[in-house]
């Protein structure tokens, strides 16, 4: 049980680094509160797994410190850090039975036999492995093997944190759902810090209280699913989260106002500086309405998802997607759009202006 702090953490797999792109993880500063359920979300190759391996101690970071409860652990190995980690692909010990696989982390820590037994049965029950406990682990399906991997991560009750590295990749969708709710349930029961790495936003948003979004080695935003949706701090969060993602339109900042094609747009906050090489306006499709006056657009197409309609429109600054109610009538040809002021943000060099 511990609060985990990462301080000025950077890691590179190269010996020398010349540009930002040479870093797998850079300038990470974050506190993982004790007992929190976190999701680490980002596309493949953004440094999620590297960050996880740094926390667990499998990788020594190039720069920066790792603290557990304000105690330096940067030089400790995974066993000393007492971390459980579950990997993307099932790792099982072929020659052992399912029981021995689950008991292995406990046996290595010289725990008494009857305690091991109780714990293994409990975990096996939870993961529905009870009936196969005496089988050889290598005979199981990919699902079953991954359940063993999960079980080995969950079997120790005194760990500082449990980390999941896209653990449900090999599991079929139906079971995925069940296992994810099991994990969530388990988190409420044992109250350990859990960090769940994924590139799937649904997975992240349903599992976690706090979602940490990574992009090109950096943490771009940490917040609740609602924060990420309503107020993306970085354009990447805007278009990565949400379906469809945020509309980002090139605009101009003029005397504190945001101008889209010469037309002033009301945004959440005023713009103070003009010092950006890239200026954009961002608004989610959910916060756009048809109106009698506003941004002139041409309606290109409408797709009905059943719950709502996604409307593709073309403005002079680029394509704008909006979401309308399923019952709403969509004008054909020309129309005007208005943005909800409190959910419309200005972005300078990809970061939100507040």
């Amino acid at each position, binding site marked *: 049980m511990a609060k985990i702090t990462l301080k000025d953490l950077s890691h590179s797999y190269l010996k020398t680094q010349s540009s930002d792109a040479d870093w797998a993880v850079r300038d990470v500063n974050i506190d993982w509160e004790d007992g929190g359920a976190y999701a680490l979300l980002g596309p493949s190759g953004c440094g999620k797994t590297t960050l996880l391996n740094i926390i667990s101690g499998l990788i020594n970071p190039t720069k920066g410190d790792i603290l557990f409860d304000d105690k330096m652990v940067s030089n400790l190995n*995974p066993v000393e850090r007492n971390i459980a980690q579950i990997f993307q692909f099932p790792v099982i010990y072929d020659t052992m039975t399912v029981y021995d696989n689950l008991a292995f982390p406990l046996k290595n820590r010289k725990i008494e036999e009857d305690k091991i037994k109780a714990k293994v049965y409990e975990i096996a029950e939870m993961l529905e492995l009870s009936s196969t406990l005496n089988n050889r682990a290598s005979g199981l399906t990919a699902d079953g093997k991954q359940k063993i991997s999960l079980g080995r991560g969950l079997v120790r009750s005194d760990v500082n944190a449990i980390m999941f590295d896209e653990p449900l990749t090999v599991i079929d969708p139906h079971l995925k759902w069940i296992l994810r709710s099991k994990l969530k349930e388990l988190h409420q029961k044992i109250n350990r810090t859990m960090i769940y790495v994924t590139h799937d936003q649904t997975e992240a948003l349903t599992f976690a209280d706090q979602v940490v979004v990574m992009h090109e080695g950096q943490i771009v935003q940490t917040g609740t699913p609602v924060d990420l949706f309503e107020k993306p701090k970085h354009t990447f969060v805007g278009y990565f989260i949400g379906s469809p993602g945020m509309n980002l339109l090139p605009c101009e900042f003029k005397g504190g106002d945001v101008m889209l094609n010469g037309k002033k747009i009301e945004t959440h906050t005023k713009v103070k500086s003009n010092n950006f090489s890239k200026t954009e306006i961002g608004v989610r499709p959910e916060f756009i309405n048809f109106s009698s006056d506003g941004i002139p657009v041409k309606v290109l197409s409408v797709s009905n998802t059943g719950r709502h309609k996604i409307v593709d429109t073309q403005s002079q600054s680029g394509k704008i997607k909006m979401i309308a109610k399923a019952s709403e009538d969509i004008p054909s040809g020309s129309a005007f759009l208005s943005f909800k002021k409190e959910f419309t943000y200005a972005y300078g060099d990809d970061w939100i202006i507040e």
Partner: protein
Amino acid sequence: MNKTINQKAWFFVIPVFVLVAFNAIIPLMTVVNYAFQETFGNNVFMWEGTRWFKQIMLSERFHASLGRQFLFTFIILFIQIPLGIAIALTMPKDGIGVPICLVLMSMPLLIPWNVVGAMWNIFALPDIGFLGHSLNALGFDYNFTQQIGDAWFTTILMDVWHWTSLVVLLSYAGLQSIQPAYYQAAEIDGASRWAVFTKIELPKMKKVLTIAILLRFMDSFMIYTEPFVLTGGGPGNATAFLSIDLVKMALGQFDLGPAAAMSLIYFFIVLLVCWVFYTLMMRNEGNQ
């Protein structure tokens, strides 16, 4: 699925059949021919039935060389397999060390057998060879041409030098194919180095080790050239393994009948051991 029956398909098997016939079955048939008959040359044969087989099976000479053969094979397997695994474990996993180690390891495998024999013969000569001379200078009474123990020691050392690399290379390939996640998981699980070896590395190397043991068994069981050049089967008959004894019988004494019978028995022993070994390994596989 229903299989179509088409007898014309046999045509496609003919090339393989002809090839196998010429390089295996027909030569073997001449041996079979000699094994059941007696000949004094001029293509005159007399039927002898199973006489030569009985003679060989009951001959003490055959028992002795078969015993020596098994002893030799077991000793070299006992040394080469663990040693090969141990060397593979200490080899670097990446970087410039990998090609260097691989080339060094492959060297002994590339040397022709008779050259290996000759090399070791000279190397081990008690008066002028580096090994022989050094051992004697250190106070050991070493002479592989005279003493049975020394002859065995040298033959085994030579085979270990020549063939351990094969086990190393196969084991190394097996080790390299293990995903890093296994080692990471073991680290997280708090597994000891020994547990990593017995629970991850050894099981993952099982297939390549099966091949290594099988190959080393067959090769060592049929070994001829190296000990022939090194010791010539001596001193006395001390290192006369099956092949050496067989050649002595066939070409030295010109006992073609018994030699042919011995060839067939020899062949069946190799076949039987390989079959038993392979079946056991595969059955184990099926249980998993």
